[in-house]
């Protein structure tokens, strides 16, 4: 199996300090503070509609906070950058481009060397089991393939941090499980810093090193849980006593918040 060029030595530390954000009279973020250590898999978990995507938009640079700071590698986030790439909850593959052209879109826009990126694209496509589908258009691919394609399109740019906005939403249970393991594999092999936003506790605990639990809107960090499950992580970890214990702990905290919007 080909290896992805290692970017373990890159930094990719990110933190938010006391971030507030309102849309008109609606208060969405109410003093968010958390850290994403370099090379870690951090999860933000909150009830649906709690403002998770707003946090994502600020981290990605699409939105500016009303107050507070959002810092990446020691610099304030001013706008979108290829260092911080997003995998969105809806598919954002360009429907009018083949898988190959979707993959190479980033490098082309950044004017990178064609030969080197084509080589890397082939490796990534192979690693994701999509070899042979290069000339297919997105709607010719299955839901799971589209998700993997989206991940490839982002990974080829060697981002320092990957922002995953509910990337498993809408996949059937089996595909979702396989996809989660795929993401774990990519994380463990590349060492890219990752932030996952999700409303599913099991998912957050299964994937993350740290899980931050959010309150219902306006969002605040309610609890931080360190996930001490060993790596490399496999699907069996979900059946351990330890996993069940962590899930119970998180569930008790979240139930109260979920009832608020029930």
């Amino acid at each position, binding site marked *: 199996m080909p290896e992805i060029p290692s970017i373990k030595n890159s930094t990719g530390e990110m933190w938010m300090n006391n971030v507030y954000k309102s849309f008109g009279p609606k208060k969405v973020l109410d003093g968010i503070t958390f850290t994403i250590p370099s090379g870690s898999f951090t999860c933000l978990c909150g009830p649906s509609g709690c403002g998770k995507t707003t946090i994502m938009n600020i981290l990605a640079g699409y939105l500016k906070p009303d107050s507070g700071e959002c810092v990446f590698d020691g610099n304030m986030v001013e706008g*979108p950058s290829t260092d911080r790439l997003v995998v969105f909850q809806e598919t954002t593959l360009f*429907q009018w481009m083949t898988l190959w052209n979707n993959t190479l879109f980033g490098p082309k*826009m950044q004017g990178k060397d064609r030969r080197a990126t084509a080589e890397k694209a082939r490796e990534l496509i192979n690693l994701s089991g999509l070899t042979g589908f290069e000339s297919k258009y997105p709607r010719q691919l299955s839901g799971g393939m589209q998700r993997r394609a989206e991940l490839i399109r982002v990974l080829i740019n060697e981002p320092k941090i990957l922002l995953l906005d509910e990337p498993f939403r809408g996949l059937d249970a089996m595909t979702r499980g396989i996809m989660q393991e795929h993401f774990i594999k990519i994380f463990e092999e590349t060492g890219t810093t990752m932030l996952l936003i999700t409303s599913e506790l099991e998912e957050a605990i299964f994937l993350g090193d740290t899980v931050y639990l959010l309150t219902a809107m306006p969002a605040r960090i309610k609890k931080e849980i360190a996930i001490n499950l060993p790596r490399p992580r496999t699907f069996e970890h979900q059946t351990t006593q330890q996993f069940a214990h962590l899930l119970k702990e998180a569930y008790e905290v979240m139930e109260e918040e979920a009832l608020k919007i029930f």
Partner: protein
Amino acid sequence: MSTERAVATPKAKLPSWFSWVRTHRPSTETLITFTTLLIIIVVWNEIARREIVSKIFIPAPMDVLRAVWETSTEGYHGRSIWVHNLDSLERVLIGWVAACILTIPLGFAMGLSSKINAIFDYLIEFYRPLPPLAYYTLLVLWFGIGELSKVLLLFLAAIPPITIGCSQAVKNLSLAVIQAARSLGASSRQIFFKIILPGTMPEIITSIRISLGFTYTVLVAAEIVAATKGIGWLVWDASKFLRSDLIFTGIIIMGLTGVALDAIIRMIARYLLRWKYM
């Protein structure tokens, strides 16, 4: 022990054309369509033959065919009916192409900027429901009865579907798709040409298709007022002499031309949007 099995006797060999017919059999729907057409022609022929309705109003199919032949060879008022048809097509296409070139960008601008939308939206919404003949009188008053007023009328008729379609198409584009392109390093210019333009292409094509159809229907109106050529004018002129065979001829040619125009656009669309039809 015997291992013999009953060997199926080979079926009688069918003639080779039989399998061809089987694989190339038209669909039931196609057969229904053509049967309907056939029934209409037969009924039409019967009505004309028995003179249930006077021939002044409904000519026989053969009379229409004869009229097609006459107007093709001898012409009508010195021009072959096909040249009349081309004259009309020229007017439609000039008006429509001009509208496409000028208003696709306008539609985009309206979709992207609420301020530009505020300038044009209500103007277009105001004149869109007006019957073109209502303001045609004004155009004739201002620009005379020549080509200019006709082409202008067709141009104006072509605009609303395009601006509405294009501005809506831009608004419908997913924000996440544009954000993704921006994160991947695309400049505003690249986002326009590589994301917005191809992403809205299906709706653009639909809107210009609707626009061409509508423009074509306005054609007769444009040609009725003081023209001396064109298929619309031919129909109108023939009616003054109760030449129903010519009226039928003109209408049928007009209809077929409309169908052909739409087929051409659909063909271009299939090529441009092959990612959608794969």
